[in-house]
């Protein structure tokens, strides 16, 4: 097959050219010594209060809207308030258990559709997902396709609401990459704020292809207080 022929030719060319470079490599004095990676701040350095605060700062910096609530009933109330505010009628939801349990009590308030077909998605006013991780230092949500069918629900509707458990917050990008690397989902999506473009005269426009608004409802307590969580989860 011709692509095998191409493959072999490419590998031959790589090896041949690298071999040709060897005499020059020896005298090419410039080298870029890999500086030691900066030490990762220990988890304990960030109390959960501080993590939430950092996340809030950075998430709001990119235009996100944060609601911090104590538990699932409070999350449902916060969600309902947003739904009413934006007058959402057609709502696409992901298959995450958290989304199911929080939206369960709101079934009479609007039309919630899980695994929504495309036609519904393109007409929907709101998409609701959870997130497997969130990065405080950048205000980023991280969604894994193996855990949740999130790709279209978090993208197609004009508004995205993410239900986030505080225990999934991490301070750095590096920490989250470490959690993902063992067996990355087929699709991992990092979301930092609303869809944006500056393609016309470098003027910022929001909501070009994805959602123009992103909300996070952060559920900060699951039966224990924030300080208990820190004690149990420390290094």
């Amino acid at each position, binding site marked *: 097959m011709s*692509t*095998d022929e*191409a*493959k072999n*030719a*490419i*590998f031959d060319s*790589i090896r041949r*050219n*690298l071999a*040709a*470079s060897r005499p*020059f*490599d020896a005298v090419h004095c*410039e080298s*870029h010594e*890999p*500086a030691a*990676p*900066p030490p990762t701040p220990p988890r304990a350095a960030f109390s959960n209060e501080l993590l939430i605060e950092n996340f809030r700062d950075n998430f709001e910096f*990119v235009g996100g809207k944060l609601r911090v609530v104590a538990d699932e009933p409070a999350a449902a109330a916060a969600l309902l308030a947003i739904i009413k505010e934006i007058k959402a009628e057609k709502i696409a939801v992901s298959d995450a258990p958290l989304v199911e349990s929080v939206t369960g009590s709101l079934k009479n308030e609007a039309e919630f559709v899980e*695994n929504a077909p*495309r036609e519904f998605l*393109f007409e929907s006013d709101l998409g609701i997902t959870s997130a497997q991780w969130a990065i405080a230092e950048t205000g*980023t949500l991280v969604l894994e*396709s*193996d855990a949740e069918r*999130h*790709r279209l629900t978090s*993208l*197609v509707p004009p508004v995205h609401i993410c239900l986030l458990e505080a225990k999934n917050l991490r301070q750095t*990008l*590096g920490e989250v*990459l470490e959690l*993902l*690397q063992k067996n*990355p989902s*087929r*699709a*991992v*999506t*990092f*979301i*930092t*704020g609303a*869809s*944006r*473009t*500056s*393609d*016309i*005269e*470098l*003027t910022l*426009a929001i*909501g*070009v*292809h*994805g*959602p123009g608004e992103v909300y996070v409802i952060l559920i900060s307590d699951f039966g224990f207080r924030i300080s208990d969580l820190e004690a149990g989860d420390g290094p």
Partner: protein
Amino acid sequence: MNQLTTENFDRNARAALGDAQLRGALRNLAVTFGTRRKSAIATVDDWEGLRDRARAIKDETLARLDVYLAEFAENAEKAGARVHWARDGREACDIFLRLLKEREATRVVKAKSMVSEEIHLNAVLEKAGIFPDETDLGEWIIQLAGETPSHIVVPAIHKTKAQIADLFTEKVGIEKTDDVDALTKTARRVLRERFARADVGISGANFAVAETGTFLVLENEGNIRLTTSLPKTHIALIGIEKIIPKFADLDVFLKLLPRSGTGQRLTTYQSLITGTKRSADGEGPDELHIILLDNGRSRMLAHPTTRQSLACIRCGACLNACPVYQAIGGHAYGSVYPGPIGAVITPQLVGIEKAKQLPYASSLCGACREVCPVKIDIPELLLHLRAAIAEGEKEPVRRRTSEKLAFKAYAFAWSRPVVYKLGTKISRLLQKFVAKGDKIGKQNGLLAKLAPPLGAWTAWRDAPTVAPRSFREIWKDELEKKD
């Protein structure tokens, strides 16, 4: 309109210099992206260390590119992707055509991809009757206008909103408006229909991780996510230099690329794609094809100087920082990749004969090297290419006899203090006839008549006049004053 060939660089550059609107847009670009970049890199503790780590990772990858490339392909296939190999653009286009034909696909959406520009994919597909829709706002604008990108990150930077408004009125049929939000909403509305019915989505990639077979696409708009999520088939075209060894290396590159490119800490979306569906009812395309493209890249491995071209992560920072790019924009280069990085990779990709002028499109000021997140020594590369061009000349560059004589006289005078002193005195007298202010330039035609070699020198630049008093004279006076 500029002719898009590198042979015409001089003429294109001169035309661009006369385009006040273009220069305004480029000034805006340099200031906006320059400022944003500065504040974004200040959010990293050790920016220099990060650049060194990135370069070390790239050096290590390129030194064993065959090993990492094979590892990437193996892991991507294990995860369900089908990997194809293309020696050049033609082979890559043939693979695209074959895949589209097999699927009877006619409706194709495209995410912004510089490598697809490099192989002129759209033109090839159009010849075969397939008209792909560019979905990045900037790319869509220039596709509607029948143009090419003038910047690798903001492709339509050369167009004003008034021009875009006219374009949308003519091609999309909207009422004329120069409200940027309204123009953006138009793109959303029109392209949504294209997304909904597309058979195939085509994307590039920013990084490909050998360890896991994952590749990443970074964006702000969401069109890449739609392109790679909605159609049944996803084809990704990836240059072989995009490989990085470890998943953890992404920590380094995801910190560098958005900060250097648009001055963001992270772009809005990163999609990390590893193979295909793992269950029948999972979301996303049924099939994923990865085309790995060489197209002249492996040749660049043959010398450590040229090899560093392959470390480039296409952030565009060198374009924004370059005084030449800032003055003439991207189209004058006549190449797919403009700016400093374009001036070094274009001659290597298309052959030095076809892009001889590009390595000279630089004052070697080094601004590009300063901002490059992977520390590519672009001035060194430019000189390397200039040397190659000079060596390739059949005859050494012939200097005019008058120029030779002038340099001989110059050398004679400058090595003899008495003659030097006398020479400066005579010059001071003579320059009165040719200087304007403190410059000798082409604005005074007399110079060309008086001194032909200097006349040639000052055709493109002004020479400074000899100072009214020399340093030695001033020094002597100062000493006497003190005494």
